């Protein structure tokens, strides 16, 4: 049995998978690793290419495949079900870890576990955020010393990205299966459930980023994003309510603007305007401020 299972969902992106695998191979952490790739019904050539990438890889690779496309949460459940090692990390095809990531996180996790025995911990990290069509990296910090439920709902300085995490296998099993009604944002749901189950997200306390997120809105359905946002908003309504009416309406505003961004970046400007109008209704003042500063432009 390996010490660490690295779980990677894959769908029609062999190049992205190659990038992710290269970043695993370059890790300085010297523990034993098993990589589990779950293909989610990719086209045959993409699936075969993904499988071939694992052959001769520096670490053992287990390749799982769905016969047809079943969506990201189902595939994450396949991966969750395949866990065999005491520790788990996630990586998405197309994202990348820096060589120090695992070494730093394992050392910090051991220290944190010694300080808080019995506490369920997920070790996250700061990361670089890089838009695919831009050169600049922007560092995003995971600020964990705060009300984590509120921070996850806000999603500004504590974001629900599985590929930043290292944790014990049972902490993931205890959260349970991913919600298959969430083709998008299933990570946020999963993080919220972890925190509601008294889990704590921590970070190693280093200033630098340990991984990079190659960000792109292209090809992603704004309507689906909005639907998932609405589902999360309903599912966790009592949490939004807890922080007051203004908080709730501000989150609604940001959800609409978030969906509008996806629509605009996929050139569906009519839909983007619709979502912006809904955002304006949720928090008129915030929307006016946005208009004053940036007009109708919403790309960050």
């Amino acid at each position: 049995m390996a010490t660490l299972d690295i779980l990677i969902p894959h769908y029609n992106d062999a190049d992205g998978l190659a990038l992710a695998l290269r970043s695993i191979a370059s890790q300085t952490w010297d523990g034993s690793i098993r990589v589990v790739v779950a293909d989610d019904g990719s086209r045959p050539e993409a699936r075969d290419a993904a499988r071939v990438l694992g052959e001769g890889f520096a670490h053992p690779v287990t390749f799982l495949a769905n016969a047809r496309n079943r969506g990201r949460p189902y595939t994450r459940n396949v991966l969750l079900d395949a866990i065999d090692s005491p520790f788990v990390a996630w990586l998405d095809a197309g994202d990348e870890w820096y060589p120090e990531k695992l070494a730093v996180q394992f050392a910090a996790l051991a220290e944190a576990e010694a300080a808080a025995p019995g506490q369920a911990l997920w070790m996250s990290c700061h990361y670089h955020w890089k838009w695919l069509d831009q050169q600049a990296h922007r560092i995003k910090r995971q600020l964990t010393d705060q009300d984590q439920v509120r921070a996850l709902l806000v999603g500004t300085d504590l974001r629900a990205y599985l590929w930043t995490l290292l944790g014990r296998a049972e902490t993931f099993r205890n959260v349970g299966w991913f919600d298959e009604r969430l083709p998008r944002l299933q990570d946020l749901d999963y993080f919220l459930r972890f925190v509601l189950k008294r889990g704590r997200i921590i970070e190693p306390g280093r200033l630098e980023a340990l991984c990079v997120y190659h960000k792109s809105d292209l090809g992603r359905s704004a309507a689906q994003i909005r639907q998932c946002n609405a589902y999360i908003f309903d599912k966790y309504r009592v949490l939004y309510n807890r922080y007051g009416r203004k908080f709730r309406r501000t989150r609604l505003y940001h959800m609409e603007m978030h969906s509008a961004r996806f629509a605009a970046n996929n050139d569906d400007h009519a839909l983007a305007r619709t979502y912006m109008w809904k955002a304006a209704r949720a928090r008129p003042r915030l929307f006016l401020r946005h208009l004053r500063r940036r007009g109708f432009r919403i790309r960050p």
Partner: protein
Amino acid sequence: MSEGVATGAPAEAAIDAASDEALERFRHGKTVAVVIRMLADRSGGAERIYIELANMLAARGYEVTCLHYDATRGKPFFALDPRIELINLHPDPVPFRYRLMRWASRRRFLPRPWRQKWGWAAANDIFISQLRDYFTLRRPDVVLTFMPPANTPALIAAAGTGIKVIPTNHNVPAEDYTSPERWDPNPIDRAARLAALDHAARIHVIFPRFGEWFPDHLKSRIVAMPNYVSEEIVRAAPAPRREPVILAVGRLAKVKNYHTLLAAWGLIAADHPGWKVVIYGVGPQLKVLKAEAARLGVEESFLLEGHRGNLGEEYARMSIFCHPAHFEGFGLSAAEALALGMPVVAFSDCAGVNEFVADGDNGLMVERSGGAEALAAALRRLIEDDALRERLGAAGPASVAGFTQERYAERWIALIEELTDPSGTPHGDA
């Protein structure tokens, strides 16, 4: 699940349908919400049962969410299974309107009916609104609520939603529903407590006899489930030779009636110099009891020992258990004492104890009208008659053998399954 294949194997072997078995495996369990009003840092018996029931359900595959409404940010005193979600529904901060209502409800110059209305609204409106949002948006399969301060808001919140709510009652119903001394003294609350039961799918009581108190139209929904003696307690081994100690365990509060035990001991202490009384528990009557013991000259043999963790060992080594309470929902300490072979002395009208202590079988039941003298006579009889003490003690474990955690869990699961069975009756919400 999808088939796993190490790389290098033929491509076909790696391909496996997302099988029905996997779909079944990833399916979420039935959802149960368990509601209590106050949970943070509370170590009472009801809170313990609340947590243990939630843990039992989680261990059996249910998806459990514990909902509470605490103004403070404390954590549950008892360990909650890491698979269980815990959500505090209390707003942070409380909206100004409700703070104003609370303030106004305490101003004596305002008319009493206004103060009562605002006081009740300030205490319950947000809780009800949060529960209603949770019920309508999350649609839990079953909701279990603990004690009137959570039962009433949950039942009001569920009204008309089709959500099946089972309020649990952990005391004598007449006390919980009509006594102005228990729970919220606001008459609006007292009226709402009983009226809200119309929306219950089932109504839990500890013993069948407690169900007889409820109005006729609710009686068909009553389910009786006694509590249980924890496995930790039963694990202790009874000592072959017991110490000459009369034990009592419980909160030092008026309802436990330790004054009568003290008065009884004052009558017989001088005749039994080798014996003493030990009470484990804390509470508001500590100082008064100490002062009274000193006044009676029994402070050396009437010992108030405070909180004790490993009670099993205490039951196992002491001789007589005395429980002079006025009433109980479930006399847990008396049941625990019986489980470890102690004869019990109690008043015969003490509900929640007289359900399982039978005079002359596993203890001595005393007429309350006889007061301290009658209690003293029963204690004296047991102190002086070794054979009687041993016979009654030996009958104890069998008399509470049905109160096991396993059986308790089975009863709850049977009830939840009955309510969530698609072929069963649709809903108890009248």
